[in-house]
């Protein structure tokens, strides 16, 4: 315990926790995305999946773990960003670097993007997890009709366009965060850093399109 606390007091220690929880959250969004793809197979498949998931005995423990991961990730990353701002001082440069020394766009606005993701997270839980409880019958059992709620919401332009925008931000966050976490954890290496970056593109695109597909399907066809 003492070891963990002193680890958490070091900047690199804090970064390592952000990186580890970040990678954990990457796994979570991947699974979440795969689950959402079931929307494309219709109401039975999706409601059944949701029902099975909620029937899983270890779910509460997993949800608690996920909650801890989110809290750890968010608190420490914001703490680090504040530290970084302080290290920078109050005066910024008059001009921004151009040409080869220009900062890649994906590295700008890290904090603002994180805060938007955080606001989204709260709204997202509020509108689905704690949203309207419709009921339906599935194999003779009464289950939550989460499919209906999803369809109802994504027929509204506000939801579909709003979610698409947030997914763009998530794409950016994953694209820079995925390789960054390997570097933070000290797992990156000159020999395979380019592969990690390729994997990051692949992963971020898959996750983003996987989330986009069902919501646009609903918006256009249902």
């Amino acid at each position, binding site marked *: 315990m003492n*070891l963990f606390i*002193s*680890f958490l007091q*070091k*900047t*690199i*220690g*804090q*970064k*390592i926790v952000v990186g580890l929880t970040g990678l954990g959250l990457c796994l979570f969004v991947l699974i979440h995305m795969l689950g959402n793809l079931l929307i494309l197979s219709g109401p039975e498949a999706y409601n059944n999946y949701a029902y099975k998931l909620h029937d899983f005995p270890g779910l509460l423990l997993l949800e608690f773990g996920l909650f801890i991961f989110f809290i750890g990730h968010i608190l420490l990353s914001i703490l*680090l960003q504040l*530290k*970084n701002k*302080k*290290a*920078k*001082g109050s*005066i*910024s*440069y*008059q*001009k*921004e*670097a*151009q*040409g*080869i*020394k220009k*900062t*890649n766009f994906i*590295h700008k606005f*890290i904090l603002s993007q994180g805060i938007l993701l955080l606001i989204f997270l709260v709204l997202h839980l509020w509108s689905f997890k704690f949203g309207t409880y419709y009921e339906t019958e599935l194999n003779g059992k009464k289950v939550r009709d989460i499919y209906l709620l999803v369809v109802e919401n994504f027929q509204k332009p506000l939801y579909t366009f709003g979610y698409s925008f947030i997914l763009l931000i998530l794409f950016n966050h994953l694209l*820079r965060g995925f*390789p*960054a976490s*390997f*570097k*933070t*954890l*000290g*797992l*990156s*290496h*000159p020999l395979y*850093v380019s592969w990690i970056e390729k994997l990051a593109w692949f992963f971020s695109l898959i996750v983003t399109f996987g989330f986009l597909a069902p919501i646009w399907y609903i918006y256009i066809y249902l």
Partner: protein
Amino acid sequence: MNFNLKIWRQKSNKVPGSFQSLFVKDISEDMSFLEMLDKINEDLILKKEEPIAFDHDCREGICGTCSLMINGSAHGPQKAITSCQLYMREFQNGSEIYVEPFRAKAFPIIRDLIIDRSAFDRIQQAGGFISVNTGSAPPANTIPVPKEKANQAFSSALCIGCGACVASCKNSSASLFTAARIFHFSKLPQGQAEKTNRVLNMVKQMEKEGFGACSHTGACSVSCPKEISLETISEMHREWRKAFLNKTT
């Protein structure tokens, strides 16, 4: 060539600074950036005005004292050079050029474009050495060093401590500098004995000096005149993680 310069002037860290506009004429394209500043200073002195204070020493890219943020780029727009190796022909005739000091909380401004980089010295002193009794030089090749290791150590040893990495980092992180100074020693057989303490102490000092954390944007490495690899930072994190867990368990 003519230039429209905006140069940061600041009497000391205690008083606020501002840009001074200077229109300069008859600059040869073969002048280095610092030679242009020399010429401006001569003119200022003749006019009985305060010359621009800027750091310089070797003027051949090896000492690391020249430190200018030129149009928002540390050491100017070109890769792998220091400000003293930058020539005026790289700029468009008549263009506007902003010249600022390297900015970071841990690098207080001494005057105009001169900053205090002693935070780097303290990081170095925290572990950037090997403890040996100095005497006459030991005969060469008493300790065999594999060529590959020698190369790795050398590519870190190239760091000249200029501070461009800190200046160009949005977090003012000194990770690239610190990592380079760690692996300069920790790659060599002579550096093994103090490896664990070296990384722990140097990272600790880096934090104490108020530098930020690394977000892996890569701005440091592209601005580094010695092209220290960004991967050096990942390696430092790895060494630190191992050292921290070994030391405390």
